[in-house]
């Protein structure tokens, strides 16, 4: 998304200073996707394309309702269809709207090396400021949900913006507006949690005793949450991570190693400097030159004799 509002940042990629955050008196928002009410109509996918002016290339039929086959630079949300045979031997069709989860502690933002290319607003939305993106793909490595996709033409990374442009003027995201069954809700995070609680109670009363809310605390919670009928096994839903977390490899790379590396390099350079100041340069003396010449001369005279 474009840089519509830059005074309500709570996080800013590759920044060692406090981001501009004066206008941060905002509610945390959340999108609640109630998987149990989704009919897989893909109205949300169409609405996303429509509002954001996205037109992915027409692909091929892959033998699945999933279409296109994967998220992409122009596919910011995608219905994923999983067939699951439950304990009673009945088929369950688990349909999940995939896309950016808008983590409270975003791995993409942590990994990003370009200052301000990824920001998080006070309302919790994680947004890519594309003109600052350098196309390195570090966000792809940082993300625990495999969401960002790099465009091969402009070398920029793209993902769902949670319609930050709409939200900033008090509208709900396009997918929410389009959903015909009310499976996608949008509001303050507290309201969404309350609503999810009612839905879960209802699901439990109808025999889904493992129903629950997907708001993974490993990433500090998310601003896109799911109501799942099988909250004990999120991976049933086309590989939704059971315990999403920023990879420890990424944490090491973006955590301790960064300062340690600079300290190490600085120490090496400083050791050199102070060695120079104390031991000083190692210079060839006249005596050395005389000795060196002597060795060469003696060898020469030996050969000629």
């Amino acid at each position: 998304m474009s840089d519509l509002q830059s005074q309500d940042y709570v996080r800013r990629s590759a920044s060692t200073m406090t981001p501009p955050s004066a206008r941060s008196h905002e509610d945390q928002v959340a999108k609640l996707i109630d998987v149990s009410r989704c009919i897989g109509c893909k109205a949300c996918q169409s609405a996303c394309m429509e509002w954001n002016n996205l037109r992915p290339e027409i692909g091929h039929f892959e033998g699945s309702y999933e279409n296109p086959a994967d998220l992409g630079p122009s596919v910011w949300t995608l219905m994923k269809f999983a067939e699951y045979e439950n304990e009673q031997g009945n088929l369950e069709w688990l349909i999940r709207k995939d896309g950016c989860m808008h983590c409270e502690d975003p791995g993409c933002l942590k990994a990003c090396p370009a200052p301000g290319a990824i920001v998080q607003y006070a309302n919790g939305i994680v947004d890519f400021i594309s003109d600052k993106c350098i196309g390195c793909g570090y966000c792809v490595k940082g993300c625990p949900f495999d969401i960002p996709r790099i465009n091969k033409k402009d070398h920029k990374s793209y993902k769902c913006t949670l319609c930050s442009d709409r939200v900033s003027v008090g509208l709900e995201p396009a997918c929410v507006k389009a959903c015909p069954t009310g499976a996608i809700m949008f509001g303050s995070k507290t309201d969404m949690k309350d609503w999810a609680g009612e839905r879960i109670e209802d699901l439990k009363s109808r025999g889904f005793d493992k129903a629950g809310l997907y708001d993974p605390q490993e990433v500090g919670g998310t601003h896109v949450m799911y109501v799942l009928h099988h909250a004990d096994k999120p991976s049933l839903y086309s590989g939704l991570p059971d315990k999403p977390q920023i990879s420890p490899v990424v944490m090491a790379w973006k955590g301790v190693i960064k300062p340690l590396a600079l300290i190490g390099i600085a120490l090496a350079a400083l050791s050199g400097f102070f060695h120079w100041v104390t031991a000083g340069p190692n210079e060839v003396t006249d005596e050395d030159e005389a000795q060196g010449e002597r060795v060469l001369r003696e060898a020469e005279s030996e050969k000629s004799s």
Partner: protein
Amino acid sequence: MTRPKTVIIRYTAVNRINHWITAICFVLLVLSGLSMFHPMLFFLSGLFGGGQRTRAVHPWIGVLLLISYLGLIIQFWRENLVHKDDIAWMKSIKYVAINDEEHVPPVGRNNAGQKMVFWSMTLLIPVLFFSGLVIWEVYFGAATSIPVQRVAVLIHSLAAIAAIIIWVIHVYAAIWIRDSVRGMTQGYVTPGWAWRHHRKWLKELAAGEHGKPTIRNRP
């Protein structure tokens, strides 16, 4: 100070050109690489025309560095083979550090420190190249899985830091041991330099073990 009439060719023109191509590539890689490593150094990307161009050009310089360094390996591997004298040199490192070379055993063409720089780079540059390929988003972004890329980027950073530290040592040693830089720019050293720092090598040269044309009149 006496000005010796004869000098010793330490590095041929091919050696020197190859070395400086490597050096230029390395410096450019350090600058562009560090800009993508630490936010405080992102400004270095300005030297390359911005973040996008830095990201685009860095891997290509890396390819050039690998090719160039292979040339150095071909030219210098033999003289860097580890010898038992090197252990004696390492044991006398404290005399080396205080410029007291009379207490250091005579050194051949390269001392153990120089060999350490050579072999460290010989290990690190291919590691950097291959880990770099894995994270070269434009061409190989889809070639490996994301967990593999995460490990590759960590290895790439660690190897780069190690290489930078080795490079700092290399550059400082060249400044510290006076007239070494001239060996790699104009190609020659004086007999006194050879006597002081590589006495065994000087004696080998005098005995004609390295061929005649290495000793010539001063330019």
